[in-house]
Structure formats: structure tokens, C-alpha cells
């Protein structure tokens, strides 16, 4: 899993995987028997959970701060109220003095109103005060009660116009009460201020603490998320990279490798499939290689067999023609009376032997030619040739046959026919075959050989006034061993190979052959070949 290859290109990731326990963790995550979908879901849920926890902790801190703020606010309120009470009491004192000076009901009213306000404020303080302050407040209230009584006495004295007595009462009782209450309120204020200071200090320290722990937790959460991301992503990346390298090898035709990933998820299945694929490819490759080797061996054998066949053909050609040469040679010399006079009654059978010998020779030549064609060994030897020479050669060879049958035999080469490029011998053979057939199948009338130029082609025609060919036979007249019917073969001889061989030679020249015929009136066999056959053209 932590092989060097799959982490190439990620130096930091590779370092972490190899040098830290993260590598093992990645392996373990890969080994988890859970789908990729489940793993990803779990990872995201885990990260979400982390953030929820972080949020909750932050909310708690905020609640704490807000609680302390409330306390602070309450303390402030109490200080305000205390100061207000103090002020109210001072006003009370002030109005008492005013009453003593002005001796009117309005001032007395003011005193009483301030007195009531003081009582209300004191109640508020008392309600809000923490328990330890209640003692002081009760003392304030006691002082206030006495002050109320004193104020009432002073008011009565003022109404009775006993100003001196009132002044005495004010100076001797109310003023010391004021001082007492002032002292007590100062105590409350001092206590509240002290509480506020403590609270402020506590809040500051708590805020610092909260910020620190929040930062720490935040950092931890981010680290955990990154770690989780690292582990989960590498548990996927490693098999993907391994697959990449593995497929690269396979693509290069190396099937020796195997995917070994610890994953038990979709990547594990994928790796197993890829191993299967590789094994199958290796098997197919091996199979194909063996087949190719077998085919090659077979090919060698076939080539050897083909060579043997060609050699056999060449030998046969020689072996068959050598005795034929002797037979026909001796016959000709006998008929030429080189061995002395030949009795007249011997001459006809000797000529029959000669005719049949020549026919046998033609058969041998045709069969050998066809064998060569079928073996793909037939090649043209291209050279300049004269179409006139071709026609002359054919006429010279067949003239005696035509004369024997009493047929007119004429040749005609158009004036504009130039020298041509092709295999003159093969062309001669073609014309010879066609003309030989024409003479063979014509009982009376004539056979004509015509050559004309048609643009860049030469057209050779052999026209006869013979049997003609039934329409139904025209289609496969050029197939091997075809003659119009078997009787004809017996009556006229021939192998039925001549037309096939002729067609092959014409096509090897890049030309075509066709026939027009009317039964009973004669046939015209024609073939056209390029005037100048280019090397390798057909």
C-alpha cells in the first residue's frame, strides 16, 4: 500500500504515508468492510459533528458572558439606585431646611414626596440586593423610618410655628440620620463597586480562557478534519494510482503485474476485476502467441509444400517433354525419310501417331500452365512485341490445319497498330488457343484473325462461321473444363483448358475477354489488352 510507486508525484503525501502512522491508518481505512459511499458519508458526518460540538461550546461561552453581563448590569443598577436614594435623601434634607425657612405647606409636601421616593428606591435596592447586603439595607430602612418620624415631627412643629424646636430637631436628629444613611449607602455602593470590579476581572479572565480554548478546539477540529480528509482521500487515491500504473503496464503488454490493494470497498472489487482482466488478457495473449506460432509453422510447411509442388511441376514439365521430344523427333525424322523410304501404307498411321503426339503435348502444356496459374507461379515477362508477328506465328502454325479442313483462314492487322508492350508469347498463346478452337469447331466457311487499335488498347478478334454457342452456355464458357457438351470433347478433342488459360493471361495483362455468338452462324471471341502494360499493373 505504501509502495513508492503509487505516491510518486506527491512527495509530502508520500512522506506522511511512509514515515508516520498515517500510512497504517490509511491501510486500515481501506480495509474497512464498507462501501466508498458509506465511508464518505461517515467522514462527512464526523466532520459535521465536530463543527456542531464546536458551535455548542461557543454558545456555552457566549451564555456565560451574557450571564455575567446581567450581573454587571444589576450591580450598576443597584449603584444607580443607591446614588438616587442618597440624592433623594439629600433633597429631603434640603426641603426640610426650605420648610424651616419658608414655613409653608408646599415645602412640607416636597419633603414627604422625597421621603416616599426614597422609600420606593430603597425597596428596589432591597429586592435586587444580594443577601449579604440586606443587613445594611435594613439598617438604612430603620434610619429612614426614624427620619420619616422626625420629618413628621418637624412638619408638625413647622405647622405649629415652633420653628426653633423644629430647627433643633432637624439639627439634632435629622442631620445625624442623614449622615448615618449616607454612610450606609456609601457602604452599599462600595460593596457593589467591589463586586463589579471582581466581576469585571472574572469576566476578563473568563473571556481570555474562552477565546483560548475556542482557538484550541478550532485548531483541533481543523486538524482532525484535515487528517480525516487525508486518510480517507489517500485510501481512495492509492488504489486509483496503482490502477493507473497497472493499466499502463497492461497497455504496454506486460501482464505479469497484479493489483494488491487492501481496500475492501469498490476499489478492492475493481482491483480484483482488473487482476481478472489482466489474467484473461495474458491467457488470450499466450493463446494468440501460440496460435501465431502454429500458424507460422503451418505457413512454413505450406510454403515448403508449395515450393515442392513448384519443383515437382518444373520437373514434370521436363520429364514429360523429354520423351515427347524423342517421340515427336523420331516420328518427324521417319516421316522425313531420314531413315530411308517409308512404305506408303505406313505413312498414314505414322501421321496419326504424330497428330496424337502433338495433341498430347498440347494437353501436357495446358495442364502444366494451369497448375502454374493455380499455384500463383505464373508470371508475365514483359517486353516489346509486334502484334503482326503474333498473328503471323499463329497463321504459320495453323495454316496447314485450315488447309486440311478446306477452310478459308485470313488475318488482318489494322495499319495503325504499333508495336506493343506485353508478354508476346502469352498473347500468341491466347490467339493460338482462340484460333485453334475456331478451326476445330468450324466445318466449313472461314476463320479470321483481326487486330485493331482502340485508343490505348489493342483488340484481338477471332471470328468463325462455326457451330456457335448456345446462349445458356455463354456465361460459363471461360470456366475450367468447359466445352459446350461432352460429345464435343469426344468429337473435337481438347482439354477445355484453353479458354480458361487464355482468360487468365488476358486478365494478367489487365485486359478482358468476351464472346459474341449465334448458334449455327458462328462466334467471335475478342480480347482487349493495354497497348503498353505497365510493370505490376494487373
Amino acid at each position, binding site marked *: 500500500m505504501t509502495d513508492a510507486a503509487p505516491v510518486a508525484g506527491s512527495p509530502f503525501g508520500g512522506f506522511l504515508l511512509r514515515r508516520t502512522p498515517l500510512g497504517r491508518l490509511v491501510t486500515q481505512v481501506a480495509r474497512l468492510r464498507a462501501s466508498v459511499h458509506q465511508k464518505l458519508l461517515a467522514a462527512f458526518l464526523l466532520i459535521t459533528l465536530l463543527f456542531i460540538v464546536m458551535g455548542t461550546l461557543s454558545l456555552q461561552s457566549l451564555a456565560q458572558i451574557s450571564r455575567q453581563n446581567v450581573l454587571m448590569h444589576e450591580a450598576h443598577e443597584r449603584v444607580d439606585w443607591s446614588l438616587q436614594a442618597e440624592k433623594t435623601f439629600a433633597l429631603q434634607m434640603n426641603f426640610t431646611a426650605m420648610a424651616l425657612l419658608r414655613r409653608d405647606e408646599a415645602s412640607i409636601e416636597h419633603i414627604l414626596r422625597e421621603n416616599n421616593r426614597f422609600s420606593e428606591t430603597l425597596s428596589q435596592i432591597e429586592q435586587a440586593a444580594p443577601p449579604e447586603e440586606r443587613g445594611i439595607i435594613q439598617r438604612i430602612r430603620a434610619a429612614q423610618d426614624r427620619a420619616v418620624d422626625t420629618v413628621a415631627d418637624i412638619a408638625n412643629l413647622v405647622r405649629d410655628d415652633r420653628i426653633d424646636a423644629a430647627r433643633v430637631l432637624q439639627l439634632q436628629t435629622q442631620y445625624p440620620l442623614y449622615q448615618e444613611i449616607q454612610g450606609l449607602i456609601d457602604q452599599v455602593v462600595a460593596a457593589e463597586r467591589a463586586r463589579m470590579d471582581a466581576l469585571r476581572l472574572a469576566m476578563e479572565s473568563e473571556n481570555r480562557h474562552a477565546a483560548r480554548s475556542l482557538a484550541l478546539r478550532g485548531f483541533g477540529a481543523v486538524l482532525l478534519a484535515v487528517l480525516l480528509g487525508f486518510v480517507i482521500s489517500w485510501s481512495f487515491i492509492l488504489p486509483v494510482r496503482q490502477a493507473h500504473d497497472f493499466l499502463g503496464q497492461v497497455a504496454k503488454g506486460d501482464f505479469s503485474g497484479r493489483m494488491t490493494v487492501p481496500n475492501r470497498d469498490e476499489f478492492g472489487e475493481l482491483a480484483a476485476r482488473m487482476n481478472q482482466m489482466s489474467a484473461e488478457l495474458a491467457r488470450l495473449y499466450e493463446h494468440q502467441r501460440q496460435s501465431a506460432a502454429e500458424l507460422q509453422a503451418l505457413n512454413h510447411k505450406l510454403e515448403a509444400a508449395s515450393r515442392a509442388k513448384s519443383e515437382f511441376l518444373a520437373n514434370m514439365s*521436363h520429364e514429360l517433354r523429354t520423351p515427347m521430344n524423342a517421340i515427336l*523427333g523420331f516420328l518427324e525424322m521417319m516421316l*522425313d525419310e531420314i531413315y530411308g523410304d517409308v512404305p506408303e501404307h505406313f505413312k498414314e498411321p505414322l501421321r496419326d501417331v504424330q497428330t496424337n503426339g502433338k495433341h498430347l503435348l498440347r494437353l501436357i502444356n495446358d495442364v502444366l500452365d494451369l497448375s502454374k496459374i493455380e499455384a500463383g507461379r505464373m508470371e508475365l515477362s514483359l517486353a516489346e512485341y509486334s502484334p503482326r508477328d503474333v498473328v503471323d506465328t499463329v497463321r504459320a502454325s495453323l495454316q496447314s490445319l485450315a488447309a486440311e479442313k478446306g477452310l478459308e483462314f485470313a488475318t488482318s492487322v489494322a495499319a495503325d497498330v504499333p508495336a506493343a508492350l506485353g508478354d508476346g508469347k502469352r498473347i500468341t498463346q491466347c490467339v493460338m488457343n482462340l484460333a485453334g478452337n475456331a478451326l476445330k469447331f468450324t466445318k466449313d466457311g472461314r476463320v479470321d484473325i483481326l487486330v485493331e487499335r482502340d485508343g490505348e488498347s489493342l483488340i484481338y478478334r477471332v471470328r468463325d462461321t462455326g457451330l456457335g454457342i448456345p446462349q445458356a452456355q455463354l456465361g460459363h464458357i471461360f470456366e475450367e473444363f468447359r466445352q459446350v457438351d461432352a460429345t464435343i470433347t469426344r468429337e473435337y478433342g481438347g482439354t477445355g483448358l484453353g479458354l480458361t488459360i487464355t482468360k487468365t493471361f488476358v486478365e494478367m495483362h489487365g485486359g478482358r475477354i468476351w464472346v459474341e455468338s449465334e448458334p449455327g452462324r458462328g462466334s467471335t471471341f475478342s480480347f482487349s489488352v493495354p497497348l503498353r502494360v505497365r510493370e505490376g499493373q494487373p
Partner: protein
Amino acid sequence: MSGKTILYVEDNEFNRKIVRDLLARTTYRLIEAFDGEEGVTRALAERPDLILMDIQLPKMSGIDATRRLRAEPSTAATPIIVITSFALSGDDQKARDAGATGYMAKPYSPRDLLQQIRTLLPEA
């Protein structure tokens, strides 16, 4: 007999007999060889006026023998008729390339052969 000498190089007895019989009633003198090597040796030793060379011979082919004789000053100008078995397989071209004066395709007509000999080497 002070006729002109013809060397016939041929391994087949019947073919040799044909030429032997063919030339028996002429003034030509026939000497024979059975394979390519012997053909070259006799040609160089006896300087015939014309050579008939079969193409397929033991030891050395008619083509090689012709080439050898053309390379020798004493036989460079001697007319050589190569007798080929494969009239249609380009042997005639090979024979010409080797330096043959003429060629006959087997099976040949003795009459034609005699005519070609007489053309190249008129009887005295």
C-alpha cells in the same frame, strides 16, 4: 569427312540419338558430351564450329556452361544453340542473356533444328 564439327551437350540418350541420326546424312561431324562440365572441357579441347547445348544438364547447367564458354577467348565467338525445356518460362531470355546465339524449345522439330544449324553454319 572434313565437315564442320558440331558439339552436342545432352544427357538424354534418345535426344542425342535424334541429333546423331539427323546429322548422319549431312557432312557435319558430331561430337557428344553428357553433362555441362564435360561439354565445356570438350568445347575448349576440340574447338567445334557450333555447339548445341541442352539447358538442363547434370553437374553444370547449360546456361552456366554457355556463360563459361563465352568467357573463354577460344569459344567466345562459337555459335551456341541452347535447347530449352520450358519454352514459356523465360528460359529463352536466360539463354540469350548467357550469350546463346539461338535457341530451340523442346520438343523441337528436327527439321527446324537442322534448318537453324544450316543457317548458322552452312554445310561446306
